[in-house]
């Protein structure tokens, strides 16, 4: 106990006395750690951004898309029963139809064609739909007499940006004119995008848009590890119910062909490792020079009774204590850089809510700093242990 305390006291004294020299050496380590942590943090943020965009398009991991195709269209009612059976049998919580449709709407400036997505409430969860105003569909929205609509920003603008609290209405024109209520607004997928809207499946059927439902897809969100087994089981189920038809049960999400970020993470890890290696070499270089400068002092300490282990521990602790402090500073710098709002918006423009700074990046930075300190301290410490006391005192 006293040995460890004494070694720490000794290391701290050494750092205090040589603060300018050590500070200069540690600036390099702190910057290396900051670079390492920032690269990992930025990489993580970019991955989150890519993931978010990919999940909006293809659904969360793992999303299965089901479809039954053949020379003739499958009986819609039988298909619905088959899908309901699958949901019940496999206990699937989030699912949704997805049927595209074109529908004309009456806006204050005239009638306009709108890309309508006919979906179920589960679609919002599966595709991570963000709502900037109002809310996404709830299960009881299917029972509204006036169908609920979640519209894009472009649609909302065309409708004159009414206050959602007032339950604004829009009219679906055509053979069966219907009044719908806007309950939520989603951001436009890209600038200048045309107006679009989501409507629930049953509401679309009642509004006469149901004809296209059978042409669309049925999506399920299942656990990653169960996706392959479920694919086989569902295909078999559907094949039995629709003999002679072609069954589609495929993963639609970004991770369907393995983790697309693995290569990016490998590259990021490689760059981070290189950065750290450069920092370690710099630290080692300075530590070696420092030990040569301290040969006499080491000899004097040996004359006081310092054992080889104690000299080794002392030299190494200096390096470890110093790099741990530098690592902490580096991690703080990295957090300040990565969490800067401007940088966040540039790296992950698709994200509306940015994730917290990844704790694993901070731990990696700090751990790497301590490891660098231990490695960069071990070699000079070995040199220090090999110092001949008699020669050292006369050095």
């Amino acid at each position, binding site marked *: 106990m006293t040995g460890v305390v*004494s070694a720490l006291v000794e290391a701290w004294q050494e750092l205090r*006395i040589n603060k300018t020299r050590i500070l200069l050496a540690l600036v390099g380590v702190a910057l290396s750690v900051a670079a390492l942590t920032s690269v990992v943090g930025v990489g993580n943020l970019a991955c989150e951004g890519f993931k978010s965009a990919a999940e909006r398009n293809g659904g969360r991991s793992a999303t299965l898309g089901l479809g039954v195709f053949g020379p003739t269209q499958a009986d819609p009612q039988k298909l619905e029963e088959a899908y309901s059976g699958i949901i019940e049998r496999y206990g699937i919580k989030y699912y949704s139809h997805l049927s595209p449709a074109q529908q004309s709407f009456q806006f204050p400036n005239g009638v306009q064609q709108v890309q309508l997505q006919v979906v179920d409430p589960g679609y919002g969860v599966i595709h991570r739909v963000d709502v900037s105003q109002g809310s996404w569909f709830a299960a009881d929205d299917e029972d509204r007499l006036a169908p609920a609509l979640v519209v894009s920003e472009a649609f909302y603008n065309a409708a004159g940006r009414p206050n959602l609290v007032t339950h604004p209405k829009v009219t679906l024109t055509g053979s069966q004119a219907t009044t719908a209520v806007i309950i939520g607004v989603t951001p436009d997928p890209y600038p200048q995008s045309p107006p679009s809207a989501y409507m629930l499946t049953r509401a679309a059927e009642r509004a006469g848009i149901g004809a296209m439902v059978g042409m669309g897809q049925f999506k399920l969100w299942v656990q990653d590890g169960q996706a392959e087994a479920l694919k086989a089981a569902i295909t078999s189920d559907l094949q039995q119910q629709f003999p002679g038809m072609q069954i589609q049960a495929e993963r639609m999400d970004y991770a369907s062909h393995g983790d697309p970020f693995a290569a990016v993470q490998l590259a990021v890890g490689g760059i981070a490792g290189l950065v750290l290696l450069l920092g370690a070499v710099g630290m080692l270089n300075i530590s070696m020079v420092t030990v040569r400068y301290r040969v006499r002092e080491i000899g004097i300490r040996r004359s006081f*009774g310092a*054992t080889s282990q104690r000299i080794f521990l002392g030299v190494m602790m200096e390096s470890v204590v110093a790099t741990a402090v530098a690592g902490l500073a580096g991690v703080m710098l990295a957090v300040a850089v990565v969490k800067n709002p401007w940088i966040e918006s540039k790296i992950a423009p698709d994200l509306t809510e940015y994730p917290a700074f990844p704790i694993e990046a901070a731990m990696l930075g700090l751990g790497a700093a301590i490891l660098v300190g231990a490695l960069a301290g071990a070699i000079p410490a070995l040199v220090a242990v090999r110092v001949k006391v*008699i020669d050292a005192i006369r050095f």
Partner: protein
Amino acid sequence: MEELVSLKGVTRTVLLPDEQELHILRGVDLTVCSGDHTAVIGRSGCGKSTLLNLLGLLDLPTSGELRFQGTPVERLGNNERAKLRGSSVGFVFQQFNLLPGRSALDNVTTPLLYARGPAVWKRRELAMDMLDRVGLACRAETMPNMLSGGEQQRVAIARALVRRPRLILADEPTGALDVDTGQAVMALLDTVATETGAALITITHDVNVAGLARACYRLESGVLTPTEVPAGVLA
């Protein structure tokens, strides 16, 4: 008196780069007891420092027997010798060898960092006591480069004695000091050694310093022989 350190037929030989052997010490016999004040005199290069290193457990003899407090030193491992050196031997060097950048108090505290038990926790208190004994309590926070040569050597003495060693080894302790300061330092060293009951071995080529000892040896070409205590100018 208790026998502290004894050398019997000790030799020390080193191998030169051209494979030839250099005999630095030849058949050295020496016994030092607690409370002794022994001087070893000799010219530069006669092996004085090699003898000091053997006495201070910094080196091992090539042949012969070296016992410290009755224990044959060659049986001790490096770490055991280091621990024994830390607890029982205090060094005073010619060039003081104070650690730069540390105050006088920090310098005196340093050997206590290699001690065990309460001495580690009470190190500042013990160091202040020792600085007080050498008359430098008022300069405790002063850096070595702000102290005179005599003051630096007094700090070095305080540092050598802070762990209450049984043997004090002084290698040319007045070599870097003027005559008056050297005399004061030697008087202090002798007084403190006597008070603590430690044996003092002074290695010097200065007959005035050797004259303060109670026993004297001459080292010539690696051979140690007893000699009369010189009647130095200062004695």
